């Protein structure tokens, strides 16, 4: 299980390192916009990693003046290095970020 997650984590990291363009903006300011992004994610095949990254607006580094990262995000499980947002449900690194970040 752990090694399988490791492989997925690596393939996400590779996609981001290779310059995958993701929808970093606009940040969902209120709940309504947040819900709209979730709705788009729900329509995806859960295995469609690339679309998850694009719609989620993933970055492989912290974001913005507050240097927001997965580490502070309420969905991030520190020990499993996992994003627990049901619509994403992917391994992530503590220094990454996506526009569904919430604290």
């Amino acid at each position, binding site marked *: 299980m752990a090694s399988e997650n490791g492989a997925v984590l690596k393939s996400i990291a590779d996609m981001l390192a290779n310059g995958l363009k993701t929808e970093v903006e606009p940040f969902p300011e209120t709940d309504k916009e947040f819900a709209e992004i979730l709705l788009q994610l729900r329509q995806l095949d859960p295995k469609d990693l690339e679309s998850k990254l694009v719609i989620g607006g993933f970055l492989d580094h912290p974001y913005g003046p507050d240097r927001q990262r997965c580490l502070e995000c309420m969905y*991030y499980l520190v020990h499993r290095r996992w994003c*627990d947002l049901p619509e994403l449900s992917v391994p992530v690194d503590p220094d990454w970020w996506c526009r569904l970040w919430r604290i």
Partner: protein
Amino acid sequence: MANLLWLQGGACSGNTMSFLNAEEPSACDLVTDFGINILWHPSLGLELGENLQKLLNALTSGQMPLDIFVFEGTVVNAPKGTGEWNRFAGRPMKDWVSDLAKVASYTVAIGDCATWGGIPATAPNPSESQGLQFLKRQHGGYLGAAYKSKAGLPVINVPGCPAHPDWITQIVVAVATGRGADLSLDEFQRPKTFFTSFTQTGCTRNMHFAYKVSATEYGQRKGCLFYDLGCRGPMTHSPCNRILWNRQSSKTRAGMPCMGCTEPEFPFFDLAPGTVFKTQTLMGVPKDLPQGVDKSGYIKLTAAAKAASPAWAENDIFVV
């Protein structure tokens, strides 16, 4: 013997149901052990029609003493301030409320509707509903800010949607046994004994709150409901996790967020779609933070708590 009268205005009868399910003490204990004479109650009263009017007139004229006047539901003023939409025993209920509140030794509002208007008084408030002495957070309500019952107390507010059965019977017993003057009330006239601590006090998810591990779905047995599901436990004054419901559970223990039903603003956000059971955020940060915590403190706390969170916090610890 203390005479108690219970009337109901604009309401769903939820507080009556709650009262009839009380256990410590039960509604029967009020009569047998505490000498409370329930003159009339919507589900228990025997009198109808003229006989009921006679009873009410005997109370308003002072011929019979009214020790405890309990009111459930809103005072309905529609249409146009007449109160005709809620007639009872031959006249608008609001007129009975005015007359009975004048002669009562103690007036007790049970449930959100009677305390601050609750759901019926939510905009656009078509029934022109008011609570007895508040309309939402605004002091005054139907009886006016200056109202005091004959014992010298303002309306005693026991909020909740519904109020917990034992909050109701314990306050009634306190008043009936002459301990009414010992009741200390908060700024919203709620008995401090019940409404000083928070819903969060005693919540089994406190460890997950501390380590910032979120429950992402209802009924999940790990995680705190504050971060995603809109739990108002850290800013709601209620003893729901100290005095359990049915003696064994509470919303948050069962995996449902606290909706803040003991606070004057309930239901929050005027029930707009997407605002219930969802933590409202602005740029990813909750709009309502735990009482006494500011935004920058909250962000720092989160980073530290996440970094320190132990592995077990990510597992389901309530294994059956």
